[in-house]
């Protein structure tokens, strides 16, 4: 599996994603800078967390116009796997690659904590190594993770199985208490209709080593790996 981690000005989880893929999982990974216009030889593009352009104006609003984004859009249209984590998710919604928008947490605070996620759909390339209903313990760290989509869009997303993760409690119950940011119907992660582009607010790359308290994030990267292998065999 060959991955690229995009580095926008202000990205700051780029090195964490890189570290996890390379040092923990032994995958091939390279950085791609925001002003590069081409992306070659790649199976997975990661848009990492951070504060692109300071998150000034709106999270992800300015990064979305970086030169590299044309290549990302092109790659996604050709069916390539694109995963946006936290700020990366925000960039993808701003770019229109994913539906809806992410805005200010309902309590107005930045929130860093370990939360629980329920796998809502294990047919996507990002969750296929997990079981539906599995509960993952993964950190969140964001101020703008409040997901919104208008009712019609939401309904379509539900119908198309586009909701990948919801915030839940340690037992898997979806409740207001378990929602760290006011997100619509506890949505923590989604994918596009085709399923190849995904975004999530929690940080799976921070949950990849026992020393750091959880390895639950690995299943997402294992899923990606598995789906690529599968694709390769089918081809």
């Amino acid at each position, binding site marked *: 599996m060959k991955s690229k981690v995009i580095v926008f000005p*202000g990205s*700051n989880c780029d090195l964490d994603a890189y*570290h996890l893929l390379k040092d923990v999982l032994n995958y091939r990974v390279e950085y791609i800078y925001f002003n590069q216009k081409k992306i070659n030889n790649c199976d997975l593009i990661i848009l990492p967390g951070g*504060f692109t352009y300071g998150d000034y104006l709106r999270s992800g609003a300015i990064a979305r116009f970086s030169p590299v984004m044309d290549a990302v859009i092109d790659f996604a249209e050709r069916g390539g796997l694109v995963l946006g984590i936290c700020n990366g998710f925000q960039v993808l919604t701003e770019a229109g690659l994913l539906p809806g928008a992410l805005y200010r947490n309902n309590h107005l605070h930045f929130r*860093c904590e370990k939360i629980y996620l329920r796998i809502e759909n294990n047919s996507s390339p990002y969750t296929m190594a997990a079981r539906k209903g599995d509960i993952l313990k993964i*950190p969140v760290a964001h101020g703008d993770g409040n997901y919104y989509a208008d009712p019609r869009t939401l309904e379509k997303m539900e119908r198309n199985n586009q909701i990948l993760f919801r915030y839940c409690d340690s037992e898997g119950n979806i409740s207001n208490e378990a929602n760290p940011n006011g997100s619509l119907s506890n949505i923590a992660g989604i994918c596009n209709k085709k399923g190849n582009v995904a975004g999530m607010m929690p940080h799976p790359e921070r949950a990849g080593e026992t020393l*750091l308290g959880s390895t639950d994030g690995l299943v997402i990267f294992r899923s990606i790996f598995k789906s690529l292998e599968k694709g390769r065999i089918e081809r």
Partner: protein
Amino acid sequence: MNKNAWRELGLSDKEYQMIVEQVGREPNLTELNMYSVMWSEHCSYKHSRTSLNLFPTSGPRVIQGPGENAGVVDLGDGWAVVFKIESHNHPSAIEPYQGAATGVGGILRDIFTMGAQPVAFLNSLRFGDLEDPRVRYLFDGAVAGIGGYGNCVGIPTVAGEIYFDPCYSNNPLVNAMCVGVMPKHRLVLGKACGIGNLVVLAGAQTGRDGIHGVTFASEELSNESEEKRPAVQVGDPFLGKLLMDATLEAIEKGLVCGVQDFGGAGLTCALTETAYRAGTGIEVDLDQVPLREQGMKPYEILTSESQERMLMIVDPGKLKELEAVFQRWELSLAVIGKVIEGGKVIARYRKEVVVDVPAESVAGGSPAYEPESREPGYYKILAQHDLSLIPPPDDYGKALQGLLSAPDIASKEWAWRRYDYSVRTSTVQGPGGDAAVVRLRETGKALALAVDGNGTLTYLDPYAGGMMAVAEATRNLCCVGAEPIGITDCLNFGNPEKPEIFWQFKQAVKGMAEACRALDIPVVGGNVSFYNEVEGEAIYPTPVVGAVGLLDNPEKTCNIAFSRVGDLVCLLGASNVSLGGSQYLKTYCHQVAGRLADIDLEFEKKLQVLLRILITEELIVSAHDLSDGGLSVALAESCIAGNSGAEIELNNQVSPILQLFGEGPSRIIISFKPGNKDKVIKLSESSSIPLLFLGEVCGDALIIKSDGDIILKLSLGTMKEAYEEVFSCIMR
């Protein structure tokens, strides 16, 4: 020159005479402005220098002690740790968000300026009574600002402390600490070395903001100009991060030979200090400084404190490559001058020489004062306060519950979950424990980090309080199994020109220095913040210690949690405690008074060593330092953290109130599995450290017995609610 000119700039007649002698003529107004900022207390340490000499600043691990942007300590394996703490109290009192944010940005630059990759932030905060809405506004804003800057630059904030007392109402304390690591050979100093090298400015444009702390010559002062110079700057963490990444890359590639950040006193400080340290001179053309506003006067350009700027000394042959590094992030550089021989800083503006002064004089020529010092009247009176009159509580359970929800003691999660403490995937232990643990991927080892200070104790006894701050900060490192290797300190005091305040200062520094010597730990940097008073009312003397420790194996660490049912619970260390200065007295009698328990530094040292052995030999499961609230609070915290109860039996010799709520140094609660009992006893005996068996981890309540009777029983749920929900309620 008119007498008023220097007086209004805050310089005394005698200081003006010194300047005339050192320059060899009368300085012009621009030069006088430079002197005024550089000879201010903030930059010249004129009231504190002599006392600070008491600190031990060297040791086998010390690579760079005080005098540079930050201290540097050897970590072994070819790596070094760089750290410093700094105050941003006054700006935070009027614009808490930006004041705190720029404080974090400032200390960040001090670290990466030296070539180190920042890996952690810490902070120490003091506010007034939260009943006051203005205090709540300040508290909320400062916490948001610390997170706002730190989260954006992607450096985790892993530890800190927060206390509340009316003495900080109008003068909150916001102290920020940053820690970085680097390969030893990468160290770069703030020196203008190499005659002919270029002086290069990077980062933000220079504006009129932050030209403050200085009064202006009367002819230039008007209401309008006041308006134009807000005393608080706005930080730009986005630019700060780009600047950090570019500077570190430039240093790694060997493209710069000296780097200096812009802190207080802006360009003036950066130019004169780098030249002074290198024994060289600098010639600059102020017209080359990129400005944000039109019509800025030379003295404004020279003293502006606009944020996010760096000065670099560069070999002309490497300029192109340096530009390419900064260009990656679309940052441009401005060559503003060059390094010259002769030790002078010369500035031109519109072709005319407007400044021509010896760097040594501006940066290092200020007088040192040894102000008068006098023991304040309150000291003996409060020390004699009769503590035997304190009534025991009607209900020990209720008393503990109340303490757990006292803002000084209650969980500060409301604040620290607003800080990203897990970015960089290296935080093994984040906020909430005795010390943070941050692993170093490059060496497989880890840093332990803690920041501690106690204004109440220092007020009651500055000498003992100073010792205790050092002892507590280093003890906290030992509670996670680390060896303390260096400290940095931030000394927050009132007006040093008042003899009573200066006495507090001298006593505290003496105590800290003595503790450092006894515990064999060097001070490698720090900061002094005087004049923390409003309308003549000074804050408590509040020295804050930031401590750094080394942990050989991050797998072999410890936290505070009682996590395994059946484990034995013991009190390790001293038995002498006092209700003097305790949280019990503060919370239930609304008094800050009494004599503190004595501290024995030799004993403290032995305890710290023993603790590290117990942890690295993996004999104990938890360790928790006893501080605010004494034994009862520490037990409750360990229960809450581990989500288990405990059953404890007090001894009969001492009154329960003293045992449960008395406070004193050198005490730790540990828990371990019964199978390790003999080994733990043997090791503590051979170190002659008392080990007192208290009980065991069990059930889902904290139960405390005295003489066979249950005197306290609190369920986990009750304790959690008291401990965890206070701030969300108050700050709603």
